């Protein structure tokens, strides 16, 4: 197995990965969660570990056994179904979100796979007068080539706060 290789920013595979992430962000910001589920592989793992403050040299800065999200397709479908009910107060009225995706780096993966790193700044505004929330995170994705195009097989979200400053994660990153 060869080590992952950073692709050039003009590489067609990088451009395809970039387009995938921007289109995905557009679906999330539009609240099209059913459309978003369509971008996920059936065997998706969607993981957002809890970050912790540790001394330099400790060897870890996230918890190995506790996450904010650690989801399979069943759990993600339930979350999306819930948001579509008339009783999901957490997002009704909905937040206004903006998924700002940048610093995208694409690495060659296994056959038919790309590893893509990106930086995400999620702006979330709820109600008319409340201060908005910001969530900053890095993401490492595994994108898989399918007959329908690229699909997300794995996402690990490295959130940049130990204590989240948002009232819940009723939104996806």
């Amino acid at each position, binding site marked *: 197995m060869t080590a992952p290789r950073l692709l050039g920013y003009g590489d067609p595979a990088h451009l395809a990965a970039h387009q995938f992430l921007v289109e995905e962000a557009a679906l999330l910001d539009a609240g099209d969660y059913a459309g978003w589920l369509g971008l996920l592989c059936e065997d998706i793992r969607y993981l*957002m570990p*809890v970050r*912790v*403050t*540790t*001394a330099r040299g*400790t060897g870890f800065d996230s*918890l190995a*056994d*506790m*996450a*904010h*999200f*650690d*989801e*399979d397709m*069943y*759990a993600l479908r*339930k*979350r999306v*179904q*819930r948001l579509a*009910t008339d*009783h*999901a*107060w*957490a*997002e009704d009225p909905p937040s206004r979100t903006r998924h700002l995706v940048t610093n995208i780096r694409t690495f060659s993966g296994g056959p038919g796979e790309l590893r893509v790193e990106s930086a995400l700044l999620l702006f979330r505004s709820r109600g008319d007068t*409340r201060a908005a929330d910001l969530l900053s995170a890095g993401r490492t994705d595994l994108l898989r080539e399918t007959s329908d195009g690229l699909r997300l097989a794995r996402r690990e979200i490295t959130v940049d706060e*130990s*204590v*989240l*400053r*948002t*009232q*819940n*994660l*009723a939104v996806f990153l």
Partner: protein
Amino acid sequence: MLDLAAVVSDVRRGMVPAHVYGDPEIFAAERDRLFTRSWVFLAHESEIPDPGDYVVRRVIADSFIVARDESGAVKVMFNMCLHRGMQVCRAEMGNASHFRCPYHAWTYRNDGQLVGLPFHAEAYGGDDGFPRQGQSLLPAPSLGIHNGLIFISLDPDAPPLRDYLGDFAFYLDFYTRQSPSGVELRGPQRWRIKANWKIGAENFAGDSYHTPHTHASVVEIGLFREPKASKRKEGALYVAGPGAGTTYKLPPGGGFADQLRYVGYPDEMIAGMAESWSAGQRALVADSGFMVSAATLFPNLSLVHNWPQIDASGTVVPFISLRQWQPVSERETEVLSWFAVDTAAPEEFKRNSYRAYLMCFGSSGMFEQDDVENWVSITDMATGSMARRLNLNSRMGLTSAGRPIKPTLAGFAGPGVAYQGFGEFNQRHWLCQWSDHIEREPAIPAAADMGGPR
């Protein structure tokens, strides 16, 4: 100046002045009168299993290092250097034999003892200027451990923790002693919500009434086997010692093992519960037919137990969470939410139970999301002047004359007082304890000289 006696008087008759959920003067009273005295949860022993392991936790603004020292004992120390007051440990967890202050390198062993003081002879003239022997980081005034749960009180004269827990210890075992091996905690997830800390504590203590509506969505998507409203309406509420909680009614006719199988526990865990629980605890499940759900131990530790379906084929798996409503201000609370599981549980159960937890509670949990939306909204409303004109009715379950509208539940195997169905008995119990603290004078501790002149 707020008339605290009037507030307490209203609260005691079940009419809660709405501003208590967003009032800086009330918050100051809670800080000075309640959190200076009450036992407060900090951590669980399983979070610091090995010598040198530590976590850093707070009681309002006070930071404490909770460490296991080299002898294996749990030590809780105020995280402030004796010299200039620097935070000695700025990580939130780790393993260390010593804590060295970054400012002037005063160094403390992980049991708090001061062992390093640079230039002791040159700077202080040795022990005459500063007696180094026997100095240690300020210990928590009172420390108590029960089922591995580490509590402190800022009151050196606090009653022993076990005395404080009283009859609530019976219920605590359902969450934290499912086998003789005890429980392990993972996490916590931490996040800050713009809500007053009391709302979550009251909700978990006894608000079975909110479940059918606030959590309608999780029923609609089929996350649970039972229609939620009926499951709740037939459940029992209990008040015991400093705690109170809710239960679900189990299907009729099952014995101890069958009821626990229904909730999703594997037989090897049921054997652990049979061994670990008293006859009364077993009878609550087997004979009374109730299974614990949400609960709050006054003031701000809550517990929850539920059993969703974790896959498309309908596999039911229970989970336990402990959570703390850590006050930040009258308008903000830091939530610390742990996943808890029996240490002796099979690995597959632990994995599945963890997934069940993540779907339901914690920062992303589908129950928690809707709860917090409500609590933030209440807090928003409580901060204005109109909230001072409204006393919220917290008298559910009482007649106008103050008598319960229904008899206590006969045959309930647990200690304390229980009622079946809806009622705000538990929230009033919590609020009365709150009132007991608020009407006392502020605790004004004496300050100790640290190595001062003799």
